[in-house]
């Protein structure tokens, strides 16, 4: 395991992911510091005649982190694929795979260690995201109540979460995101078994994620019913469920509550099932594979 982590840390592409996250977070923070009111004006355009809101207070560290995560968690699967898709194919490309399997460890152990290393990389990436998107944003913008702008069915909604009820939601959301991105890591690892260089599995992973994401976002009833439930991309944004606060009959948010915990739990279980199936398939395929390089 240590060797695998050492290998990952020695690859320059590892740091591309961290640099990309830093750059995106910084650009958002700079843009919102300079002119965040324009964004607020955009999302509140249909109610600006009816309500007054202290927009400067609304653009705070918690809100910024949500905005950054909204954008980043769509691109981060690509960054995860950059590393995880190199796991086996990278060894094959360098001609070290045969040498590696001649060591006194089983092929199953080798795949599991590779998967564990990719998972640790994913966790580190998310930790870095938490530092740049949440901690730095809180330092720059301060803490206050958080507004969530959301489309629910045909309606748009604004949810407000008080500042003392937010942090645990971020911990939970980052935990969920770890599981979601681990599916991508597992998929990349699986595809890397079939390739002799890492470009193929990286591109294949990215293509699968893009195609499935597009299908997940098409609002066609027949696809909604028969296809979406089976696509892992339908559950990637499930972390947002932790910010959909439950409300009482009068529409007043209930502190510490979630609107639909069973749905989040089921999404989480489906993602874990994906991981289990893909990793098992990786082990089975790799055990039977002829290693020629």
């Amino acid at each position, binding site marked *: 395991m240590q060797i695998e982590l050492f290998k990952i840390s020695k690859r320059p592409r590892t740091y591309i992911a961290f640099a990309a996250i830093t750059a995106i977070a910084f650009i958002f923070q700079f843009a919102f510091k300079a002119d965040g009111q324009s964004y607020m004006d*955009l*999302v509140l*355009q*249909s*109610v600006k*005649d*009816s*309500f*007054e*809101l*202290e927009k400067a*207070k*609304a653009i705070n560290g918690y809100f910024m982190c949500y905005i950054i995560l*909204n954008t980043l968690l*769509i691109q981060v699967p690509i960054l995860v694929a950059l590393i995880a898709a190199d796991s086996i194919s990278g060894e094959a490309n360098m001609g070290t795979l045969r040498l590696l399997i001649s060591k006194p460890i089983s092929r199953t152990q080798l795949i599991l260690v590779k998967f564990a290393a990719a998972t640790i990389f994913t966790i580190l990436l998310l930790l870095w995201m938490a530092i740049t998107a949440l901690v730095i944003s809180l330092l720059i913008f301060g803490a*206050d*109540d958080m*507004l969530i*702008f*959301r*489309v*629910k*069915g*045909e*309606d*748009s*909604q*604004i*949810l*407000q979460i*008080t*500042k003392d009820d937010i942090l645990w939601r971020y911990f939970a959301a980052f935990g969920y995101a770890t599981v979601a991105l681990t599916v991508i890591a597992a998929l990349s690892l699986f595809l890397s078994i079939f390739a002799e260089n890492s470009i193929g599995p990286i591109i294949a992973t990215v293509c699968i994620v893009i195609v499935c994401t597009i299908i997940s*976002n098409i609002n066609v009833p027949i696809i909604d019913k028969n296809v979406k439930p089976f696509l892992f991309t*339908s559950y990637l*944004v*499930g*972390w*947002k*469920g932790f910010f*959909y*606060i439950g*409300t009482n009959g*009068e*529409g*007043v*948010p209930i*502190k510490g509550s979630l*609107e*639909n915990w069973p*749905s*989040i739990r089921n999404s989480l279980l489906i993602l874990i099932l994906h991981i289990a199936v893909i990793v098992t398939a990786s082990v089975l395929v790799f055990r039977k594979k002829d290693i020629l390089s």
Partner: protein
Amino acid sequence: MKKLFLILLCFSIKPVSAQDAEALVKKVKEKIDLVNNYEADGIMKTNVTFLKVPEAQVKIYFKKPNLLKIKNEKGISFVPKGAVSINLNNIIGGDQYSIIDAGYEKTGTVKTRVVKLLPKDDNADVVLSTLYIDETNLVIIKAKTTTRENGSYQLDMTFGKYTAYCLPDKIVFTFNIKDYKLPKGVTFDFDDGTNADKPAEKNKTGKAEISFNSYTINKGVSDSFFK
């Protein structure tokens, strides 16, 4: 002869009644004028279909003639723009309106005098204000205002400790709202399977309820609060 007498009687009653209404409004106005400024603590509850916001502890600052600010010092609040009308000076301040007596009506358990105010200025935003005045305590219990640009709104007030100053313990402000629509492409939402509110539950009015805990009256309020 009898008919002529009745017609003359009708014409003679109306001016007397209007005069009474004018005197009543004047008395209420004098009472409201006792307050030059105040600072109040209260709890604001907003009931709007698309807004899921918690109860807010707010501070309300008022300064004559028409400066009013509602601030949530512990968080964020959506304050209805028409809420400035909780300052009754905005409704009965000045004398640029005609007063019409509309008789009596029961508002809750209180018998109230209904008075309509018609602005003299044809271009004024307010088209009509209807006041329901408790003649015993000289306070406005309900006020309905119809505007040219901003729809209609209604104030329902409950009085208690501060009746002497015409300051309510509780105000329910009902106002017209437009549908809230997020611009497309702003969010990538998680479909958690919960259904949106049924159209039948939707209404085009919103409510903001402020329960006042305490007032500090005529002790001075800095202009900085209204910026």
